């Protein structure tokens, strides 16, 4: 600090310096996040097509949106995908964590193997699974070559089943992460409680169902929040795995928004779908963040 500054000015600078340091980030966030949310919200109320237009036309886009078969398909797919993805990841993650927590030799090798898909891009995951699930080249073909001629697994080409292949690939990518969360939770449980339960004569089953799993409630909540928001944002995986197909059978809100905004020249409808996605995520995240931040002082 310059010694030439008068004492008062120096004191003022000391006061505001921290806020000054924070301000560029705050500016970026306010503009690029909240400003943009407002902008997109506004667009969703206009008659924007290929280019943004600023002529308000009320809630026409929303009415239009809910009349679109594709949007309803996307929502239905999101429901199927979201529920299965969250449920299977949670169950698989919990089971793997409990199994790994049995003083396993080689845990140090197994854990990273379960977890590595999380480091991959969804594009890579999609590419790998697209091929693996391809009836002519992948699993089905392999089974046939191994002599199981009647084996069929052509979900990825089947309009009714394709969405489940997205679930398979997504679970493969994320379940290890959920396992790691549960494992950390298990390791955080007071071992004296476990000993006490054993002294009380609890069987292994009741030890887990009555003592351990109830204590993992916060982990379930965190896992739910993380998985739910990943599910709503899911875009890359579908693009790489099925590209929304066959037909539009694996359309999700994220792919719907992108194609309506940038390829179908229906920007107003695209914006309104984005607003609805934001509303879905906010309804999960805001209460969660609020309670998390409240707990601390």
């Amino acid at each position, binding site marked *: 600090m310059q010694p030439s500054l008068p004492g008062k000015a120096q004191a003022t600078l*000391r006061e505001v310096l921290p806020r000054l340091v*924070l301000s560029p980030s705050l500016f970026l966030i306010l503009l690029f996040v909240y400003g943009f949310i407002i902008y997109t919200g506004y667009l969703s109320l206009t008659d924007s097509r290929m280019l943004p237009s600023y002529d308000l036309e009320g809630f026409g886009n929303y009415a239009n949106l809910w009349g679109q078969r594709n949007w309803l398909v996307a929502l239905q797919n999101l429901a199927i995908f979201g529920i299965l993805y969250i449920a299977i990841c949670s169950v698989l993650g919990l089971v793997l964590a409990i199994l790994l927590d049995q003083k396993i030799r080689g845990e140090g090798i197994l854990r990273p193997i379960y977890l590595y898909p999380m480091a991959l*891009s969804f594009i890579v995951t999609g590419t790998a699974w697209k091929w693996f699930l391809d009836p002519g080249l992948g699993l089905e073909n392999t089974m046939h070559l191994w002599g199981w001629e009647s084996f069929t697994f052509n979900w990825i080409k089947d309009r009714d089943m394709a969405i489940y292949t997205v679930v398979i690939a997504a679970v493969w990518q994320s379940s290890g992460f959920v396992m790691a969360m549960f494992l950390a939770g298990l390791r955080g449980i007071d071992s004296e409680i476990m000993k006490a339960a054993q002294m009380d004569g609890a069987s292994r089953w009741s030890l887990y169902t009555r003592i351990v799993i109830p204590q993992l409630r916060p982990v379930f909540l965190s896992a739910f929040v993380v998985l739910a928001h990943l599910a709503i944002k899911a875009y890359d995986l579908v693009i790489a795995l099925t590209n929304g197909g066959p037909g539009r059978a694996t359309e999700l809100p994220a792919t719907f928004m992108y194609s309506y905004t940038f390829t179908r020249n229906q920007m107003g409808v695209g914006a309104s779908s984005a607003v609805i996605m934001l509303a879905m995520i906010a309804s999960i995240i805001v209460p969660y963040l609020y309670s998390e931040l409240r707990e601390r002082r």
Partner: protein
Amino acid sequence: MARSTQPSFGTGKLMRAALYAVLILFAVYYLLPLFVMLVNSVKTLDEIRGGNMMSLPEVFTIEPWLNAWSRAQIGVEPTGLSPYFINSIMMVVPAVAISTALGAMNGYVLTKWRFPGDKIIFGLMLFACFIPFQIVLIPMARVLGMIGIAGTTSGLVLVHVVYGLGFTTLFFRNYYAAFPDELIKAAKMDGAGFWRTFTRILLPSSGPIIVVTVIWQFTNIWNDFLFGASFADFDSMPMTVALNNLVSSSTGVKEYNVHFAGAVLAALPTLIVYVVSGRYFVRGLMAGAVKG
């Protein structure tokens, strides 16, 4: 992670064996797609078409890798993935550096120089971590155009810095919250001001959280597809977008072995980071998941 803390029940040998069998089966499940990609990336196209995806190559060839790297047709020119690999690096390095540096300073201010309203600011930043990026795509495209960096690597750097800020701030804030306030007071008594307290006292102790943040940001930005697909033009296209173009291009013969080599190339940087410093990778995931 600490060793298992739970008491051991008397367990039969059979149970133990079943346990290991299940665990190994899952390991196979997680490894299989990677194995398939690797094995088939060194086979000839004929062998892939005619053979079993699980079998090891009869003829080992490195040709698909060379193709993927420098000859495969992505768009008009047969350049291979290498220019896009470079694009990704040119994008990731500055984006990670800037967002980490800003996050560190934000975390420092939000924990050690608190002022009225700081919690609201943090809340605003935290929520920004979770927004679906679809909500910002349209205005972002306009703003990038307005400031003249549409379709450039600089534009992507800006985008990734902005939408990474929430996480980097969260990481540093939580780390610095556990850093004793008395040390800051002691530094004040010793005459260190805002910056010297940061550079001399906090930063030297921030090694672990810097590693966590850098890994997190690196992984997320390298793996990003949506922003790359939306805001990059042909000269600034990142690796993930190029890979997707390569794999889903409908012209010509589908060279699966080249696709696999390309996919592994795209995955390689993050996989290497994961293998080298998995512990920090996991810590980042946890910190990103368990807020507050």
